[in-house]
């Protein structure tokens, strides 16, 4: 099956931006791990903690802009459907695990894992939605 790629100049720009943000996220993550082991506290700690988060948020924003400017309405529909079912699945998991943690002393699920979990579900739902339309 051919890949549905937006090969316009705009699409390429967005993809490069995305790549840049991924690199930025990795770099700030590494820098972060390096320096945070010196345990700064207070406001500085919060500010440093926010840096990698901002990178990931930047990645999401870039992705969002890319979707918003997709010309192909069908591909846009597929992407929106996949995103929505992914968030349904992700929220189900967090709520389920939240209650298990609260009541049955299940091991703690890091909030940081929510985004990767969402990403995994996104891969699954995208494949399923594409299959439905084939």
């Amino acid at each position: 099956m051919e890949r549905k790629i937006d090969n316009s100049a705009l699409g390429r720009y967005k993809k490069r931006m995305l790549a840049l943000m991924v690199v930025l996220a990795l770099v700030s993550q590494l820098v972060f791990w390096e320096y945070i082991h010196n345990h700064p506290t207070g406001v500085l700690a919060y500010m440093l903690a926010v840096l990698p988060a901002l990178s990931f948020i930047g990645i999401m924003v870039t992705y969002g802009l890319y979707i918003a400017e997709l010309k192909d309405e069908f591909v846009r529909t597929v992407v929106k459907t996949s995103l929505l079912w992914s968030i349904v699945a992700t929220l189900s998991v967090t709520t389920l695990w939240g209650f298990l943690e609260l009541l049955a002393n299940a091991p703690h699920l890091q909030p940081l894992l929510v985004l990767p979990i969402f990403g995994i579900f996104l891969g699954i739902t995208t494949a399923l939605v594409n299959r439905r339309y084939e």
Partner: protein
Amino acid sequence: MYCSIKNPAERRYVIRMWVSAALCVLFSTVAALVFRLGHPHGVLAYLVAVLPALPIMGALVYTGVYLGEEKDEFQRNLLVQSLLGGTGGILAATTAWGYMEDFAHAPHADLIWVYPLFWAFAGISYGLVRLRYR
């Protein structure tokens, strides 16, 4: 205006969302009581703990189903944009909070609040989207 309920599908949806919220509160209370008074263990503990999450998962799945049922394209589009805004918001929030928990020793937040916070972000998005159509 847009706040009034226009059709059976929408009425069903709103009612079911409120019912699921009520059931969640009810099941949470029951589960908490069972844990306080009965001290269940093992599999039974997990089953009881899972109970309050079930109405939430139902509500989530039904939101997806309702999107397929809603005939009014414009209403559907409004809801989709709100949900996507909610998705972006909650993913950004959990990622940011995850980093703060890990590195800035922010207080640990319960995962069960991810779901209501998602709807808070969705509500904000809905407001923003409606502004565009004023």
